[in-house]
């Protein structure tokens, strides 16, 4: 299936992009993948921008998800490069991008538009540019709450202490006779220390306090804030700048550390899960490990709905404190109705094969996030965890942001789905092996028994024939002996035919690789069948028809001979003596059609429905009048189908007709005789 990439950013045009991509996907069956590129820049500005636009991006991604798109979050320094790389990797045929795809506002002016770059740098992929609506753009919130401010009250006493200490040290130094420059150094040190311990705000406060106390205590006139010497003004400014720069640097380093720790945490969590899943064997073990890891990472309880949650089966719930594994009767950490509500979300997630809950429509209010395990064979079940919102702020995980938690959960779900699928395939494989083994044994038994039956049957039939013959010479002296011999002869021959049928059947069924086909001339097969059946057919009027040209059909001659013999035998059995039996072969464009028609009573309605089923005999089985075990036509069908052909039965109005077709396209090319061979 084709893939259409929809480039999603914070810009409102992203919605248009998504709608456009969805429209395109409807026209040509395609899948829409909403791509969002997360900048890898860890400058404060980049981070701030991310902070500011995160809400918009999430909203847009949710919009994409609701429109049935898959979500892919990429990371990279350069948006256009990342998108192109992903598009090539995922073999996307179209990229839809908004005109103002640079969400970052001011910065964009220095760089070419993403859309322009996509157009310039792709060759195989169609790029569609969707105009944005600039009026919406300005409606975006420009600034959000700055990080760090919250920490002011905690750090203030420390900052005051530090500046106080610097003041004390400076007083001592001044009394010993150090110059102003050295004293400024001490204050700078205190600013550094304050920034380091308390962050940027503390640094600014410290530098202001420092400048204040330096001015008040150490510059002339002392004990006043009046500055006589303009040189000191520069000192203040420098101190302030140093404090700001230091704090900026420090906070950057610190944020970096936090981010990389979170990233490492996520990586470790994913790694831990995949390792745990790798060693887990059996479906329940996989689920067990998955729940363990989810509880470990998300802190809250984790739920597993195996199979279809609509069946009403209770979910497996794993609580944060280990060992309390149980089936929920009431809500584990929700209200009493939370189980029912959870089920509703789970059912939705299962049916739609999409994530739901915890901020994702249509169950945004649900505290749990439900991720379906999507495999190639459909949805295997639904995993759920509680997503802690950043607002609660209790855990470090929460600070990660709900979006990251959800993304990670989707990653987890993908891994678990893979592991489950692996387990199922392994299980199916095992099952198939057992079945093949038992099938082989069955066929082996059937074969060896049939083989052993053949020889004695030949003996019985031959002996009966000799007996029949001998009696004929004795000119009817013992009529009952002749009758018995005829019966024995007939029955033995019938049994022998049955054995041949069984052998053919076991041969087709045991040969999974298919039967060996050789090109046979239709004439040869028909002729040899009629020769074999000659004695049987003497009481009937037999007509034949062949195609005008010599037709060669790829077949297993022995098996097709068996089919024709079974069909003729059926005709002999059901048509009255003196009836006409016609065996015809006609050439069709891509098949050879074999038809056996008799002028007997034909099939009943009921016959026609079940004719080709194993062990269907049709006529009532009173005594031995109907001797068929009902294998004949079933074997015919098995043989014809093994050749890739088809068989059907019908009534002609004055008799029965069975017709089968063998495809010609499996032909081993037949060679016509040399045309140079002139008549004598």
């Amino acid at each position, binding site marked *: 299936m084709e893939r259409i990439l929809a480039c999603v950013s914070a810009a409102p045009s992203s919605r248009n992009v998504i709608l456009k991509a969805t429209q395109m996907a409807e026209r040509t069956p395609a899948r829409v993948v909403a791509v969002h590129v997360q900048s890898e820049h860890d400058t404060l500005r980049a981070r701030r921008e991310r902070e500011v636009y995160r809400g918009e991006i999430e909203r847009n991604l949710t919009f994409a998800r609701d429109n049935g798109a898959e979500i892919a979050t990429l990371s990279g320094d350069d948006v256009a490069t990342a998108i192109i790389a992903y598009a090539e990797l995922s073999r996307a045929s179209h990229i839809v991008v908004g005109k103002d795809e640079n969400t970052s506002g001011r910065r964009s002016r220095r760089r070419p538009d993403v859309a322009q770059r996509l157009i310039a740098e792709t060759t195989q992929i169609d790029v569609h540019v969707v105009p944005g609506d600039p009026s919406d753009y300005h409606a975006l919130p420009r600034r959000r709450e700055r990080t760090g401010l919250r920490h002011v009250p905690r750090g203030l006493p420390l900052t005051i202490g530090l500046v106080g200490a610097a003041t004390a040290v400076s007083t001592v130094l001044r009394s010993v006779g150090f110059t102003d420059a050295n004293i400024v150094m001490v204050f700078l040190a205190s600013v550094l220390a304050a920034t380091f311990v308390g962050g940027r705000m503390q640094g600014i406060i410290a530098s202001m306090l420092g400048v204040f106390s330096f001015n008040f205590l150490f510059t002339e006139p002392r004990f006043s804030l009046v500055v006589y010497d303009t040189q000191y003004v520069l000192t203040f400014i420098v101190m302030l700048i140093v404090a700001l720069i230091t704090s900026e640097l420090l906070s950057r380093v610190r944020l970096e550390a936090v981010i990389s720790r979170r990233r490492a945490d996520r990586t470790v969590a994913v790694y831990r899960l995949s390792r745990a899943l790798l060693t887990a064997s059996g479906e329940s073990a996989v689920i067990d490990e998955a729940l363990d890891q989810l509880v470990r990472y998300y802190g809250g309880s984790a739920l597993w709905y195996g199979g279809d949650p609509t069946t009403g089966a209770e979910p497996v719930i794993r609580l944060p404190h280990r060992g309390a594994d149980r089936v929920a009767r009431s809500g584990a950490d929700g209200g009493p109705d939370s189980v029912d509500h959870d089920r509703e979300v789970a059912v939705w997630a299962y049916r739609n094969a999409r994530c739901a809950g915890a901020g994702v429509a249509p169950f945004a209010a649900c505290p749990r996030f439900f991720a379906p395990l999507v495999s190639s064979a459909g949805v295997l079940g639904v995993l759920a965890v509680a997503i802690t919102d950043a607002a609660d702020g209790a855990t470090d995980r929460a600070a990660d942001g709900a979006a990251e938690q959800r993304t990670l959960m989707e990653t987890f779900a993908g891994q678990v789905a893979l592991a489950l699928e692996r387990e199922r395939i392994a299980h199916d494989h095992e099952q198939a092996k057992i079945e093949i083994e038992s099938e082989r044994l069955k066929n082996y038994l059937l074969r060896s028994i049939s083989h052993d039956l053949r020889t004695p049957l030949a003996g019985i039939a031959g002996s009966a024939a000799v007996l029949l013959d*001998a009696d004929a010479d004795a000119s009817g002296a013992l009529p009952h002996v002749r009758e018995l011999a005829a019966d024995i002869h007939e029955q033995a021959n019938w049994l022998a035919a049955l054995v041949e049928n069984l052998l053919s059947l076991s041969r087709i069924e045991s040969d999974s690789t298919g039967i060996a086909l050789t090109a046979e001339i239709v004439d040869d097969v028909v002729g040899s069948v009629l020769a074999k059946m000659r004695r049987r057919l003497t009481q009937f009027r037999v007509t034949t028809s062949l195609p005008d040209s010599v037709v060669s059909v790829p077949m297993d001659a022995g098996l097709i001979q068996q089919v024709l013999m079974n069909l003729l035998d059926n005709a002999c059995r059901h048509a009255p003596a003196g009836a006409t039996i016609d065996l015809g072969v006609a050439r069709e464009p891509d098949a050879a059609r074999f038809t056996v028609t008799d002028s007997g009573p034909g099939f009943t309605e009921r016959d026609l429905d079940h004719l080709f089923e194993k062990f269907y005999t049709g006529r009532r089985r009173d005594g031995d009048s109907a001797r068929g075990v009902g294998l004949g036509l079933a074997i015919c069908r098995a043989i014809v189908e093994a050749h890739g052909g088809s068989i059907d039965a019908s009534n002609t109005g004055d008799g029965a007709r069975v017709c089968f077709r063998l495809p010609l396209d499996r032909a081993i090319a037949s060679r016509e005789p040399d045309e140079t061979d002139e008549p004598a």
Partner: protein
Amino acid sequence: MRNEPLVMIVDDEGSIRTFLRIALVKQGYRVLEVADGRGALSMGASHMPDLVILDLGLPDIDGIDVLRTIREWYAAPIIILSARGKDHDKIAALDAGADDYLSKPFSVGELLARVRVAFRHAASTDGAVRSDMRVGDLWIDTVRRRATIGSDDLHLTPTEYKLLVYLAENAGRVLTHSSILRRVWGPTRENETQYLRVFVANLRRKIESEPANPRYLLTELGVGYRLAAEDEVAGEPP
């Protein structure tokens, strides 16, 4: 009494030996029964039968090996019995010098007909080239290189004529694909079975009134072809 032909039956199945013996004795043959390969080799050497009926599935020695060993010193006809579906064995046996074969289960009448054909051929192989051959309504004049069916002239290509003559010389006997190809086309064409099949199908359309139900040119599926023996055709309604 001693002049009646001696037939050796080699088969490990007692019941088959019994009815074969009864049927053959009734036709006036003398019969020697042997149950295994070793017995066949020793009894064959000591009694020198006039014809051997040999089952390929023997308990001690492979039937093909028995056949090859006997053929080293034995020139009289050998008819092979084998299970159905083992075409390779039949071809191998015919190529190893067997005169004819029958698939189990076979009818007694069929067997007796083959035995008669074998004896007839054994009697005629030492004879010179015949000037004409007749099978039913089919008549081949080898002097004028002409063939007729009833009163109609057959328009045969030289190769078709050559094929027909080869089949007629061996009327009643099965000829394998490869032996026909070798004889009519030469050793280079020996494996082109498909070519032969198409060729025979065309020839059949010239000879037979009802090609789908042939009276003369019979197919031994998977093995080769056989021109019907004189008495086989005679028994058929025209």
